[in-house]
């Protein structure tokens, strides 16, 4: 296979790892050293030549080869690679405005949401218990691969190419699947025109997730309204860009119990989104108390956190119970959610594990 990247020599893997840290090619954690053999193993699973350009990330061209190198470093298996390629293709969509996300002082990071058969075939990519937390190899590796691409191809180094004042831990990695089987709603990607049996990634640039606790009660006929109000309140929190500026798409992750209560009340995905847009507001008088400029520029009694239904990406995921989550949006970067199909054809046998099984 004709790989074009510069080869570096090191006496052993430990020395190579130190070289990677020294050159600032890592996210601060150890990486898998991208040997030629490992990179070729990932490339074997896709039908694209290594020099094909998947997208532009700032000053860098994301070729299949460069993305594969970063995916190896992140710990990806060959079956994960098509999802990484789709995510890189999505961030290259001008609608995502990746340059703005890279350079904003806001701590935005991309969240990768996976729908369709790729959740299993290219994973398994977790959608249940702890889907946003540690312990899931595909979730962790795929999200981290995108981050390493943003750093190594896109030049996002803290304080230089990445101007986030603080950043947030989700910028290391953030990838999950939608729990389509546990959801009473149609899968997210079908709202973008995909068939349910197609696979796609949806990317949104957002803040860290905010937990939304709501204990429901089957005897409570108003339970669905209470869930909507609490979730809307989490969207319109004081410090969010959405509240302060009134801009940016948010992600609402409903756990299956909360989603079930809403669906049992006869609400569809669109109904839930429409209600949340109306409920996620802040009284003007409250905002004037914070001296927020936005409040003094108009006389509306309530100021919305969202521009409209298109500002909510709603999915179902997580262990069933009383915790859902909201990711706030941002003014810069990812002014619109983007999506891309996941192309995989594993008709030929993929290379086996790179290390022996225990």
């Amino acid at each position, binding site marked *: 296979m004709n790989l074009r990247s510069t080869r570096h020599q090191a006496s052993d893997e430990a020395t190579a790892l130190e070289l990677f840290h020294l050159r600032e090619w890592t996210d601060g954690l150890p990486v898998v050293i991208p040997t030629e053999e490992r990179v070729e193993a990932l490339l074997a699973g896709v039908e694209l030549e290594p020099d094909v350009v998947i997208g532009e990330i*700032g000053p860098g061209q994301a070729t299949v080869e460069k993305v594969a190198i970063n995916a190896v470093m992140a710990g990806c298996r060959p079956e994960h690679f098509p999802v990484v390629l789709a995510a890189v293709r999505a961030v290259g969509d001008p609608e995502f405005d990746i*340059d703005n996300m890279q*350079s904003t002082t806001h701590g935005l990071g991309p969240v990768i949401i996976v729908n369709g058969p790729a959740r299993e075939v290219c994973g398994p990519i977790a959608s249940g218990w702890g889907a946003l937390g540690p312990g899931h190899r595909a979730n962790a590796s795929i999200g981290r691969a995108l981050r390493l691409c943003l750093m190594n191809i896109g030049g996002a180094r803290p304080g230089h190419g990445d101007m986030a004042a603080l950043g947030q831990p989700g910028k290391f990695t953030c990838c999950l699947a939608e729990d389509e089987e546990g959801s009473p709603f149609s899968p997210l990607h079908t709202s973008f025109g995909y068939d349910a049996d197609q696979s796609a990634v949806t990317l949104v640039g957002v803040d860290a997730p905010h937990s939304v606790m709501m204990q429901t009660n089957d005897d409570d006929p108003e339970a669905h309204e209470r869930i909507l109000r609490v979730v809307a309140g989490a969207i319109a929190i004081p410090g969010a860009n959405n509240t302060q500026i009134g801009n940016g798409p948010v992600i609402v992750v409903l756990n299956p119990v909360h989603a079930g209560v809403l669906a049992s009340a006869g609400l569809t995905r669109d109904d839930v989104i429409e209600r949340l847009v109306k409920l996620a507001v802040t009284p003007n008088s409250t905002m004037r108390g914070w001296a927020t400029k936005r409040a003094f520029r108009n006389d509306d009694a309530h100021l919305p956190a969202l521009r409209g239904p298109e500002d909510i990406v709603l999915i179902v995921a997580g262990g069933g119970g009383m915790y859902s989550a909201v990711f706030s949006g941002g003014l810069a970067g990812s002014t619109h959610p983007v999506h891309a199909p996941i192309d995989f054809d594993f008709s030929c046998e993929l290379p086996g594990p790179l290390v022996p099984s225990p």
Partner: protein
Amino acid sequence: MRDGAIFAKAGLPSIAIVTEAFVELAAFTAEAVGMPAVPRCVLPHPCSGTGDENLARVAHEAAPGIIDLLEGRTR
């Protein structure tokens, strides 16, 4: 920075105004858009939220340099 490059490519005189903390990013972005020489004016960081009096002082001090750059004079 990107806006400055877009204007420059359209043939319109433009100066990118950046604060000190963004100088490296500005150079990086200018390089990325293929216009490393886009003129820029550097202000102290941070500027926003430092009060009207300070902002007026910063603007007063920066303006002559911006005019020089627009008129093709280097300082």
